């Protein structure tokens, strides 16, 4: 009898791999993060500029999903490059150097990605390791959400009904984890997983801000799905303010 249980135990351990461990450590980490005080009160304010003519976004043929197509006045397009008045949106910016040693508090905002009109909203977002990402479906049709990370464990789940939500925790820092829907091959989103809370995504007006930092000099990296990465540096002075800007140019 004991031998049989030993066999089962071993097999289960082999079969499960590290899945159980990851989930457990994630839970513990987030519990401590929630109670930590911010490291400082300084804020980085930034701007992402864009020069040149933005490339046209590809059209999406949504005829087979009248529910989604109806949400768009004309031809829906895939918002790969969102430029408004020379400002570039959906750029993921994070601090890559100059941070004091952790542990770091968890971001105040709970990250959430919604599926509306057969597109992800937002298209680009960040989460902290161990923090739960909420995935929601507002469309009354099937979406599957497939994460294709390289260091984290992937997942592939579905939401066949409107109003369904589920949570997922990434445990390893990774820039970026793509999300895709295989029912609607055009659907793409990118999740930046960072092991601290000092990240932001540029808005439609190109602005972003990263708060909760003590004075000091920080290295930053910006990422855009089409135009790649850029690095920068910013200093937060005694007044608690630092400003930085990134400029992307249209590739010929």
């Amino acid at each position: 009898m004991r031998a049989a249980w030993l066999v089962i135990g071993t097999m289960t351990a082999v079969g499960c791999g590290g899945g159980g461990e990851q989930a457990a450590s994630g839970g513990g980490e987030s519990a401590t993060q929630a109670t930590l005080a911010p490291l400082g009160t300084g804020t980085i304010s930034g701007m992402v500029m864009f020069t040149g003519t933005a490339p046209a976004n590809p059209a999406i043929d949504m005829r087979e999903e009248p529910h989604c197509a109806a949400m768009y006045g004309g031809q829906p397009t895939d918002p790969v490059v969102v430029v408004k008045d020379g400002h570039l949106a959906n750029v993921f910016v994070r601090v890559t150097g100059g941070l004091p040693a952790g542990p770091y508090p968890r971001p105040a905002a709970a990250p959430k990605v919604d599926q509306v009109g057969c597109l992800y909203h937002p298209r680009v977002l960040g989460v902290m390791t161990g923090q739960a990402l909420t995935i929601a479906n507002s469309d009354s049709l099937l979406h599957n959400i497939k994460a294709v990370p390289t260091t984290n464990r992937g997942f592939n789940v579905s939401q066949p009904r409107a109003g369904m939500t589920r949570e997922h925790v990434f445990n390893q820092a990774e820039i970026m984890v793509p999300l895709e829907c295989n029912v609607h091959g055009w659907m793409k989103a990118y999740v930046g997983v960072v092991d601290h809370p000092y990240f932001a995504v540029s808005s439609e007006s190109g602005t972003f801000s990263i708060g909760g930092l003590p004075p000091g000099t920080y290295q930053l990296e910006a990422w855009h799905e089409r135009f790649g990465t850029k690095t920068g540096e910013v200093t937060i002075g005694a007044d608690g303010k630092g400003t930085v800007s990134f400029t992307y140019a249209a590739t010929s």
Partner: protein
Amino acid sequence: MTTVAHPSEHATHAGHELPFIRKYIFSTDHKIIGIQFLLMSLVFLFVGGLLAMLIRWQQAYPGAAIPGAAVLPETMAPGGILLPEFYNSLVTMHGTFMIFFAIMPLLVGVFGNYLIPLKIGAPDMAFPRINMWSFWIAVPAGILMLAGFFVEGGHAAAGWTSYAPLSANPEFSGVYAGQKLWLLSIAILGLSSILGATNYITTVVNMRAPGMTWFRLPLSIWALFITAILVLLAIPILSGAAIMLFFDQTIGTHFFAPAGGGQPLLWQHLFWYFGHPEVYILILPAMGMVSDIIANGSRKPIFGYHSMVYAIIAIAFLGWVVWGHHMFQSGMNPTLGMGFMISTLLIAVPSAIKTFNWMGTMWQGSIRFHVPMLHAISFVAMFVIGGLSGVFMASTPVDIYIHDTYFIVAHIHYVLFGGSLFALFAAITFWYPKMFGRMMSPFWGKVHWLLTFVFFNLTFFPMHSLGVYGHMRRIYDPTQYEFLQPLMGLNKFITVSALLLFASQAIFVVNFISSWFRGAKAPDNPWEDNGLEWTVASPPPHGNFAGVPTVHHGPYEFSAPGVAEDYLPQSSPARTAVPRTEGRRAEP
């Protein structure tokens, strides 16, 4: 053959009391092991049935919350609404549990163990300890298979056939540990089957009682013997394939992944090269036991005993050269389709022979409609439908249309439920008195038979119609297709019938359990049968026979002229010259 090779454990046969754990848990007694397999398999039969109910609910009411299913975790059914990935796991695991953990162990594990030594006049199996291990290896396999439901990523969801690359690559399925547990469990269960089969073959070859010649063996034993040979040859192929797929998943081999030079069709060839003999593993013992029971119920010798034996052997042989008929539309070279079509159509011939011989046995009989007989006749009636529907898919052009539709689902259930499971109900009710020393209630037995027969047909016969309309199988929500929308009424009808079919099984469960404690004491030979097992007490003592029995007759000497009773036990000394010439009708 004048001496019988006894197993090594002479001492345990002496009759002294063994401690409880040796007697009922880690027992080497083939009868206890058979009963252990029976209880375990019936649990899995129930689990498999429960999964089927969830599948049917989703087919009739796609996306509607299942009452009470809100207890399931949100990775399976948030708010009671089944998720597509969980639905795929349900489809996969329904097939897996039913085939590998219910029907196969019920037929081979239970009745192979229980009947072979008793019916050939042996005190036990040739290798009692190996026999014990064949059960205790099956138990962890079952636990591993159940454990898959509780791991991250959910259980295996690539169908019970586990077609690669869907089964090979977690990126495509979202299933991680589940598929690995599935493969490990199948490989371990395979070891259990191989141990059992080795035992059965050795026992039948070496341990038949004096006078039990090959052509005095009951057809149940012939069928189990041939089945054991199939198991021994087929299961290693599955185990090997499962290990290859496990390596593809874990250590980066590419047996079935084209990216690394592998070939997805290789999995299908390996799987079905095992899988088609497996189909006969799942039906031959049923045919054998039904033959015993129909002869008993008809009070007549089995019609064409020799042709029945040759038909079993022919089916077993042809079963090895028909696997390609599962793959007509797979992309296999279409020229191969021709050969596989012919061999597949030919296998209909021995099946037809068996069917007509069962009818011939009933013809001019004096039929007693006891519960086992009702189930046995139902087996013939339902197996015929499953066999005939098989002709449609054997014809390659027709298969183009009905392949992967509900026509196939109807076919497999007419063979495995209408066939194997009715035979199992017949066998369980027939040998229950011998196993437990108690009679099951004949009244509730008949009620259970009637409800099962009616609701079985109401459930599965309309599935042919779904298939004729082109309704694909393994579809989470049929309403997604316009051409399937008119079928939703039929889908609801099937679901209601299936729920009633499932509910009817409660009668069997209650009858089974309550008869164990409160049933009437069973006499030694309640059915007035000829088999050696009916000459000993119910239940038989450890070691089975007081001395070595001597066999004087074939197994089906019912209503023999010159014998007062209408049966003649195989070990009775001859009281009359029995004409044994087949092919010449002996007029009474």
